[in-house]
Structures are given as C-alpha cells and as structure tokens.
C-alpha cells in the first residue's frame, strides 16, 4: 500500500525536477543521479536511489538536449524506478533496483514523445503574442504573461510524464518479477558492472573509438591494478 505523503512528495519532486530540465533554472537538479538521490532520501532508501541514479545517469548521458531533440525522459525513469524499488524492497537489493529500472524505460520513452507533442502548444502562444503586444497598453505585462504561461505547459508535461512512467512501471513490475527476479538475483554481484559497461559503450559511441576506448581501458586497468596492488 502506497502512503499518500510518499506519492505526493514524489510527484512534487518529479514536477520540480522535470521543470528544471528545460523551463526553469537548468541547475541539473533533473540529472538522474541527483533526482533519484533526493527521492531516495525522502523514502529512506538512499543506497537503492544511488544505484538507480548511477545506471540511469550513464545510459542517456550521450543525448544532448539541443534544438528540437528531446531524449527519453531519464529524470522520470530514475524517479519511477526509485519509487517502485523502494516500495518493493525497503532495503537495498540490486536485483529489485535493476528490474525497477528496466520496467521504467518504456514509460520514459513514451514521456519523451509526449513532451515533443505538447511543446507545440507554446508555438501557438508565440504566434499570438506579436499582434497582441502591438495593441496592448502594457506590452511588458503581456509579454510576461504569455512567456510564463509556458511553465504551465511544461508543468503539465512533467505531471503527465511522471504519472505515465510510474503507472507503466508499477503495472509492468509484477508481470516480469516472478521470472526475472531470480535471474537478476543470481547476477547481482556483477549486474552494476554489466550495466556500466553497456552505458559506457553508448557514451563511447559518440567519441572517436580509439580516443574513447583507449582512455576507458586506461582508467579500467589502472584502477584494477591499484585495487589489487599489481
């Protein structure tokens, strides 16, 4: 049973973080590592949040929010995965965290597409403003009103994305958990390594392969050597 304060707090956090993605601030509060951690502290599962934050942070790091490109909503993926994992396993369990992360991906992808569609509403405001400002007695107030109205559009996008992603991952989790949880439990000692390698591959795909791979390998072998005193 989900407690009302928990879901209300998570929704408020999702709203604030999603607004930070583009509309307000852009202080990187929306980065999965940050957003998941704040939610984890709120739900008393900081280790689970950190685990999910790390995976989600790296998976879509290569996507740049430039021009009209809207990547999958990694903020709501991290938040929904943390919320579901915290509800299913109050103590840190890598298998549950990975499964919750997988279940949140379809919702996050749909949320990205939804955002693209809803952003067109702001275009309507932009078309209207020119003639309105020319007639208005107070052009500055008119400009402020139409510009800040965009925050409402982004707020609506944020709430819809959050509800969609949370709902989908909440519905998907019990369907796949009986068959996948034992597998992820067996893999849990190396599951973070596997996902980090997968996510790093996506990051290195955006670099010249020699440059990126040599530096990755250098970092990997140096740290392994240091850890084992070689």
């Amino acid at each position, binding site marked *: 049973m989900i407690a009302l304060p928990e879901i209300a707090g998570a929704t408020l956090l999702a709203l604030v973080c999603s607004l930070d993605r583009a*509309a*307000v601030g*852009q*202080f*990187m509060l929306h*980065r999965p590592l940050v957003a998941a951690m*704040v939610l984890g502290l709120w739900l008393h599962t900081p280790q689970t949040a*950190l685990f999910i*934050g*790390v995976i989600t*942070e790296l998976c879509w790091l290569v996507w*740049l*929010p*430039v021009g009209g490109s809207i990547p*999958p909503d990694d903020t709501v993926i991290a938040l929904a995965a943390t919320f579901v994992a915290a509800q299913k396993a109050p103590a840190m369990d*890598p298998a549950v965290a990975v499964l919750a992360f*997988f279940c949140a991906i379809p919702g996050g992808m749909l949320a990205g597409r939804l955002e693209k569609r809803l*952003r*067109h509403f*702001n*275009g309507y*405001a*932009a*078309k209207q403003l020119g003639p309105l*400002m*020319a007639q208005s007695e107070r052009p500055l107030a008119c*400009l*402020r009103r*139409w510009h800040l109205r*965009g*925050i409402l559009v*982004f707020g609506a996008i944020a709430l819809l994305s959050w509800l969609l992603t949370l709902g989908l991952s909440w519905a998907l989790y019990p369907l*796949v958990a009986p*068959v*996948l949880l034992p*597998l992820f439990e067996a893999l*849990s000692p*190396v599951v*973070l*390594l596997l996902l*980090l*390698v997968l996510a*790093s*591959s996506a*990051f290195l*795909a955006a*670099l010249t*392969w020699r440059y*990126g*791979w040599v*530096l*990755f*390998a250098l*970092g*990997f*072998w140096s*740290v*392994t050597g240091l*850890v*084992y005193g070689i």
Partner: protein
Amino acid sequence: MVFKRSSLNKQRLGPAPWWRLWWHSLTYQASWNFTCWQSLGFCYLVAPGLAAIYAQPDQLRQALSRHLASFNTHPYFAPMVAGVCLRLEAQAAAGQPGHMSASEFKALAAAPLAAMGDSFFWGGWRSLCAAAGVTAAVCGQLWAPVLLLVLFNLPSLILRLLGPVYGYHSGVGIIKWVQSLHLSDAAYYSKGIAACLLGGAAALAGTISAFAPAVAENTPGWWFWTVPLWLLPLRYVLKRWLQLEWLLLFLLLVLVVVAYGCRWLQGVF
C-alpha cells in the same frame, strides 16, 4: 562609427535591470517551441533593459517587437547575448548606432554560440561532472550528487551571472573572448577525461563497489581484465544499429521470453 564612452555612460543601466535580467534568465526557456524557438524567452530576457533604455512606450513596443524574431542559442550564453544587444540598443537610442544592429548581432552570434555551448556544457562538461559523480557513487558515497551539482554549476552560474554585464561592456567584441576560450577543445578533453573516469568507475563496480560486496571479497578471474574489450562490439552495435533504450527493451523482452519458455519446458518434461 566609433562608439563614444561618454554616451555609454549616459545610457548606463543601474543594477536593477541586471538583477531582473538574471532573474528572467532562470525561466529563459519557459516558452520554448518549435515555431520560433526561444524568441519569447529572449524578448523576456532583454525586456527590463529595454524598459530602462526606452522611456517612450511606442519606442519600447517597437524594440520588444524587434526581439520577437526567431532565435535559438545555448541557454547559458543567451544572457551574454542579451547584454550585447542591450549595448547596441543603447547606442542606437543615443543616436550613435554601431556598424551592426542588435538584430543583426543576434542572427550572427546565435548559431556559433549554440554550437560552442552545446558542445562544451552539454557534451563535455556535463559528461565530465556526471562521470565524477558516478565514480563517487559507485564507491557508495552519498554526496556524489552534490559533487555533480557543484562541479557543473560553477562555470555555468558564473557565465549566467557575469555574462550580461561583460557582454554590455565588451559589445560585439565578446565573440573574440568566447573564441579565445577554445570551448570545443575543452569539450573534447572533458569527454576524454569522462571516458577515463568511467573506466575507473567500471573497475570499481566490479571490485570494491559498495553494491557488490561479494565480489570485493574475492580477486576476480582473468576474465575481469578483458572487460574493456567487451565495449568494442557493444559500441559498434549502439553506433550503427540500435539506440541504448531499444537495446535495453530488447534485452528485457528476450529475458522474459526465455524465462517463460524455460518454465513452459519444465512443465512439459
């Protein structure tokens, strides 16, 4: 025409428009759209300065309309562009227009600044800060997100706070200053350092990570040293065939089908 310093002093803006510009820069992309991008946001950004420059309502209305044209640049560079535009508007209002109008400057500067800002802030610096945060997080440090926030926001906040004032005082010459920063090179090196940090984070994830205590107790086998080699085919698949989210969904689907298939076979035999 050479711009005289005395007339700039006459048009000097007090602190209030600068603070309001900075405040407005926080919601710069609130009305982002596919029709004219950040035009409303830019108009909203320069509005306090224009109101200080143009006392007559008609002049102000015309100036605002000029800045409603399509515009798109990196959001952290936009306040600096606004500073330069306010200087050009102040010059024009003082009857000493320079060799370029504010609209012409916007049209010329938007794309190069967007390219440099996207490449450095989104492509390079953000990756480096995220990799540093991830490395700390893999070791189980709860302050890892704070590291990401502080590292990333230091240069971006300085640029957003001081950019408009510096832009106003430097005028169109600000572009030379931005070029002298060599942001594209900085982005390239930041990505390289990020790749190196991610290699370190992967090694930590398989050895002493807070999330894999069972592994930490044992020395991993020879296979562990081959992990960087796994990246080569994976990178190829992700670059040529599939985006990561589709690969993850495909993996999930395959795992579910295989798991249900095994159960069904167990039932049959």
